[in-house]
């Protein structure tokens, strides 16, 4: 019995409950990030006396960390592909690589935040700064939760309990991970690349 057939053997639509759960959750998350992005956009020109977004964003740096996150989607999908073949070892390597790239992205975000802080953009500086840190912070928390899930998978894999039979679990974590990535694709373009107001 293949993993697919095991997971779906008795639902009305033939679709796995768990996967549907994740997709429903991601549909819901669209509204969450939409709200945060809107809250940022209406506030991006309200920088009060603090730094303006156009003055402070470091596009080359953010481009690199965006690229890192984008490539973590590739390693994630390779991890899934490996476990679907029953290749436990490569699955583990790609999961670790994904978690590593995710951590690199988070590290970049921490660096970005501390730099901004040094340049006078604190959380309470202006409506712009509050909205910026809240939006990117929420995204960062999502990435961190994803890393925790990936590491749980890795531990599970070392204990020998992550096999081809439950590749769907990897797939579901992957869906979450890719979603976090597409949210960043949106944020990177709309918040960073589209020219921001300068002071």
């Amino acid at each position: 019995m293949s993993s697919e057939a095991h997971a779906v053997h008795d639902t009305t639509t033939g679709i796995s409950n768990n996967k549907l759960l994740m997709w429903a959750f991601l549909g819901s998350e669209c509204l969450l990030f939409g709200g945060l992005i809107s809250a940022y956009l209406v506030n991006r020109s309200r920088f009060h006396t603090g730094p303006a977004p156009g003055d402070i964003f470091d596009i080359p740096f953010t481009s690199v960390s965006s690229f890192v996150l984008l490539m973590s989607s590739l390693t994630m999908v390779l991890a899934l592909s490996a476990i679907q073949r029953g290749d436990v070892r490569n699955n583990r390597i790609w999961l670790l690589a994904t978690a590593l790239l995710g951590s690199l992205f988070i590290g970049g975000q921490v660096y970005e935040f501390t730099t901004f802080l040094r340049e006078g953009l604190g959380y309470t500086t202006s409506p712009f700064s509050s909205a910026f840190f809240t939006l990117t912070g929420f995204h960062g928390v999502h990435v961190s939760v994803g890393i925790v899930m990936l590491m749980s998978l890795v531990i599970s894999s070392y204990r020998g309990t992550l096999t081809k039979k439950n590749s769907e679990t990897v797939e579901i974590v992957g869906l979450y991970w890719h979603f976090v990535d597409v949210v960043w694709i949106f944020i990177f373009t709309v918040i960073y690349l589209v020219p921001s107001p300068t002071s």
Partner: protein
Amino acid sequence: MSESVAELNPNGAATQPLGAYSRPKGGGGWRDWVTTVDHKKIGILYGATALFFFVVGGFEALLIRLQLATPNGTVVGADLYNQIYTMHGITMVFMVIMPLAAAFANYLLPLQIGARDVAFPRFNALSFWIFLAGGLFLNFSWLVGDAPDGGWFAYSPNTGVTFSPGHGMDFYAIGLQIVGIASLISAMNLIITVLNMRAPGMTLFKMPVFTWMILVVQFLLLFAVPVITVALFLLVFDRNFGSHFFNPEMGADPLLWQHLFWIFGHPEVYILILPSFGIVSEVIPTFSRKPIFGYEFMVFSGIAIGFMGWGVWAHHMFVSGIGPISVGAFTLSTMFIAVPTGVKILNWMATMWGGKLRFNSAMLFATGVVSMFTVGGLSGVTHALSPVDTQQTDTYYIVAHFHYVIFGGALLGFFAGFYFWWPKVFGHKLGETLGKWNFWTMLVGFNLAFGPMHILGLNGMSRRIDTYSPGFGFDFWNLFATIGVFVVTLGVMFFVINVILSARRARGLPPEPPDPWDARSLEWFSPNPTPVHNFDEVIEVSSLDEFWHRKWTTDEDGRVVRKATAAEVCQAGDAEGVHLPSPSYWPVVLAAGLPLIGLGLLYNLWICVPGTLLVLVSTYAWVFEPPDDPDGPFGHGHDEGDDGSHDEDVPGDGSPAGQEAGSVE
């Protein structure tokens, strides 16, 4: 505290062999209820909790009306009054109407689609316990004397630290956040249950209208809850971490709160009313002895209401200065949404037309919904017109309108549901005589209380004022409304007495025979009260109103003739060895962590530590929990009629889904 936490160390869990966390064995009594994952017990828990909060919210309503009964009232001070009306609104919306809908949905939805449980039984328990935790957290604010006082829609910047320096609005923001998590989990669970757990042959368009309306409501929740989540987060950050989302002094626009709140808030209105519409759509056909008129129209109008409910939110903001184009556009969309609602009213009346009507308590309450909601709907259309609304906003006219919709529409519908499904749940009917007293006192009292508020509002009485001076023409109708509320209270007491007396009368008697109402849908296939495994065997569905069509047929002359008695059609409820999900400790433990985190944010961050630990530990324990307890009361027998209702949880929301798979081994 620390001992129990050490005991549940997640690392310990990771190294111990699986099965170290054996499932609770039940054992009867309160343990059964705390650890249950049975959708029927969870439904009853939801209902009982909601009725408790109904008494709390009703008590607040009485205080409001006592204060306003006479001019210059001195029952409560202005400050306390603000807290009372705010908590009355929050309680009635989030802790009475929504959980009552959840009660009916949990109990009935799996039965109506022929399933043994919901798709994720443990998540189902989790959403109840989180809801309870949130409700208790919100009401805990009374104990510290600092209840929310900014109104249920909490407009900024009135809710900022400048104007609300106490902890009241923090209780509001964090409490609703917790309740919102419960709604979101339950929404995903029920959507997947409907999509994936239907009995063979049960296509979407053979589902009862109640199930359909619940499905629409869950989709509304799925997409609306994250919006209020954003708004509440921003409010918490503004109040506690000094951000400036709603701070005009820093150039921010507080209107953002109004948009976010009402983008959630208007779908929320339909979240409140559609379950009741569903109940009425079950009760009226049964007691008219006719199929629902225009089933497809009923379903599609429900879906249409769900969709259009997303495009009308700014009609709550006509006087907020959103500009003439926005006001014009939202006036139009608001008037359009009256159309699908009108379709429903018409279809209920057409169902009754020419039917063999039986006006027992359930039917009386259902017709009460049709008439009272029509009144509320019509006053709603009047303030869809923005020029008229400009006069009516923030007056008692609005208070009258939404009480006609929520009390007259939603609450009366739930009472219809109580009388209709009581035998299904508890095995005995509620008394008819007291039921009719219950209905008429509530209906008359309700109209006495809220009818005059139309006049008060048009005469210019603002809502939320804690008192008024004599001589404005408010005195008479206010006293009138207060008397009305006491009549409503009498009606509620009739209900409580009815519940107690009916239970006492039924003691020692055999349970109500199956199908007491000559009903139509799948839940009546099982005996009363519903056995723990719901159905002895899976039902093959071939038509809408399957149960009815198994009992009745039409002869050559088109007359309805009986082909089988209910006793022949119904199942005995004595199947053994049916595979059922095992109970679990972790939903209640996880839920207990959330209010602790909330209190920590308010008072001392250290309180967050045990709260967070509880959440983390129980998440991992949840994931490591064996999917079934082989020694459970309904352990692995032959998987007779397995409809996939056994435990397949994988924590989706931020929890390490990976471990679940490991535990299956």
